[in-house]
């Protein structure tokens, strides 16, 4: 009788499975140790010194954020520019900004944003993606939302909308009233502004760059 082949030996495959799994797990853990520091939030000092972070610190709310094509990387990235007023101030301290962001992030979970919207593209598809919502032209000076809510700044228009969403329908599909208070709304807007400053490797592509084009508009 021919010698038994290793390829039909269960022990061989059991050991292979263990080694492959172990190797893949170790690699994942090693990559995790590399990734986590890269996506840890920056500080106020980073922002003041122009140090680029993939996830900037909470005081990014004091600055103007734009989404611009980076030729070298071949896609758009958030660019942090000059100081900009946020709810009438551009001097939110590190503690104040962190507190506001904390309230907003908590609010985003408790109000269940993710089961209608997508955040960083993850969630449900019943409502628009919020990744770069802060940069959406609809909320800017040219957009319709400031006039609709009777507010003169982006953050106030967003805050007003979040508190009374079903009063300002933009589509037959409306956002329900989630009992969001004025303070919570402020936090949520800070959370949205912060999220728009995260370097998402160019997602979503061409955000806010295209006007019209459908139905010849």
């Amino acid at each position, binding site marked *: 009788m021919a010698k038994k082949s290793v390829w039909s030996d269960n022990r061989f*495959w*059991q050991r292979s499975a263990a080694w*492959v*799994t172990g190797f*893949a*797990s170790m*690699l*994942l853990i090693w*990559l*995790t140790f*590399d*990734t*986590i520091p890269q*996506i*840890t939030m920056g500080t106020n000092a980073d922002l003041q010194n122009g140090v680029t972070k993939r*996830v900037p610190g909470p005081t990014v709310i004091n600055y103007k954020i734009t989404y611009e094509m980076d030729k070298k*990387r071949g896609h758009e990235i958030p660019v942090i520019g000059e100081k900009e007023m946020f709810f009438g101030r551009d001097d939110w301290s590190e503690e104040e900004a962190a507190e506001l962001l*904390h309230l*907003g*992030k908590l609010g985003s*979970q*408790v109000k*269940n944003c*993710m*089961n*209608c919207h997508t955040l*960083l*593209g*993850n*969630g*449900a*598809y*019943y409502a*628009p*993606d919020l*990744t770069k919502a802060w940069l*959406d032209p*609809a909320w800017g000076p040219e957009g319709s939302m400031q006039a609709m809510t009777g507010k003169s700044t982006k953050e106030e228009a967003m805050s007003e909308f979040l508190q009374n969403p*079903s009063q300002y329908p*933009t*589509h037959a*599909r409306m956002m*329900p009233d*989630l*009992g969001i208070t004025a303070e*919570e709304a402020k*936090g949520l807007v800070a*959370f949205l502004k912060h999220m728009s400053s*995260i370097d*998402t*490797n*160019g*997602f*979503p*592509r*061409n*955000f*806010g760059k*295209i006007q019209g084009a*459908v139905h010849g508009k």
Partner: protein
Amino acid sequence: MANSYLTTESKKLATWYFTFAAIIFGAQLLFGLVAATQYVIPGFLFEIVDFSVARMIHINALVVWMVFAMIGSVYWLLPDETGIETVGIGLGKLLFWVFAAAIVVVVLVYLLVQVGPADETSLWLIHEGREYIEAPRWADIGIVVVVLGFIYNLYATGMKGNRSGIVTVLMADMLAFAGIYLAGMGYTDNISIDQFWWWWVIHLWVEATWEVFVGSIAAYGLITMIGAHRKVVEMWLWIEVAMLFGSGILGMGHHYFWIGTPEYWWEIGALFSALEPLPLVAMFIHVLYDWGKMQGEESAKGQDVSVIANKPAFTWFVLNAIGNFLGAGVWGFFHTFPQVNLYTHGTQFTSAHGHLAFFGAYGTLLIGMFYLAVQGKNGIKVMNATKKSIWGTSMIFGGVLGMTAALTLSGYVDVLVSRAQMGATWSGYFEGQASMWFMQGMDWRLIMGVVTFLGFFVLVADLLSIGKATHHKR
């Protein structure tokens, strides 16, 4: 229960798990139907049961019924594999009631409280607002305790009785399955880090540990239903484990393309997740090959009878091989490269994949286990299909395929209009949603959802009555 042929407490406990799982499966479909209706009639239950609430229950019920049916499946096969009664069965029964009661409370709170103020208490008591693992923190801790008890029973039984290859794989897999859940229990203000760990749970469940679970159960099913040779089946199982974990663990990279994580995940995610369909092809071939082989051996003996000892269950196992390959493999592969995913990420395309993958890879197999339990409970040697089994199976599988097709077409509109053409803004999003083709897709999804829901009732009716049919071999 009366007239039960079950001789082990482990199998009796398994039937409890299966029964509760089937009820929650019904709840999943019901709330899915509410959410699907809201796409077509936006005012439906507005500010009563909003889309966010219906959808949260839809996907949480999905996770819960599958976890229940998975635990039930392990309790079902343990006496057969180890040759002994499961150790710690009293604990198992107690934990069943604790788990079931906790789930009922969680769902009632989702439905009746819905949202709270933006503070930590809401995370502890209402929900955590993180897709798929929304369960509030008190329930998180409860789930960990319950699952630890289950793992203890599995290990104690595996170490005391005969530890087959299938039991060995399950012991390792279920421990990983439970351990990974811990990665999703924390809170952070940094949404990139939040989603990084969140994917550890979701991805390492559905694209790694759950798939290995499916491999183990399919192996058990082939041995018990068509008498496949254990040595061959277990060798396949080890190869599948190597392929599934070898591709699936680092395939995680495809969730790290756009959440703030570095660009190197593009290459890692693309490479390893592109390999993920391979084990699914292997599993598909494995099931059909073994079936042909066993039937061929029977025919060679001049016997003209089917080797299948449970026709409805085996049908579901074959549908699992197909559905897993199509839903997880093909539909996953469609959008796994970053060049494509840049536009498909967060569209109905993902939803199409999600529906066929969860149902095809897990729903099918677990329904097959329900039928195995019915066979065992009624002491049937060869269980044949009834008209109801055929209708139930066709309506549910056809319904999910139909929903997937409809969502795929709507997804294309989403991708092309909202994303490629309009650049993903608020108005771009609604431009896509208002497109006629998108809306027709949503109409068809609702219709196919109703077919699936009706099929569920036929399935339940069959599960309750098939044991009493007279055309089985006892």
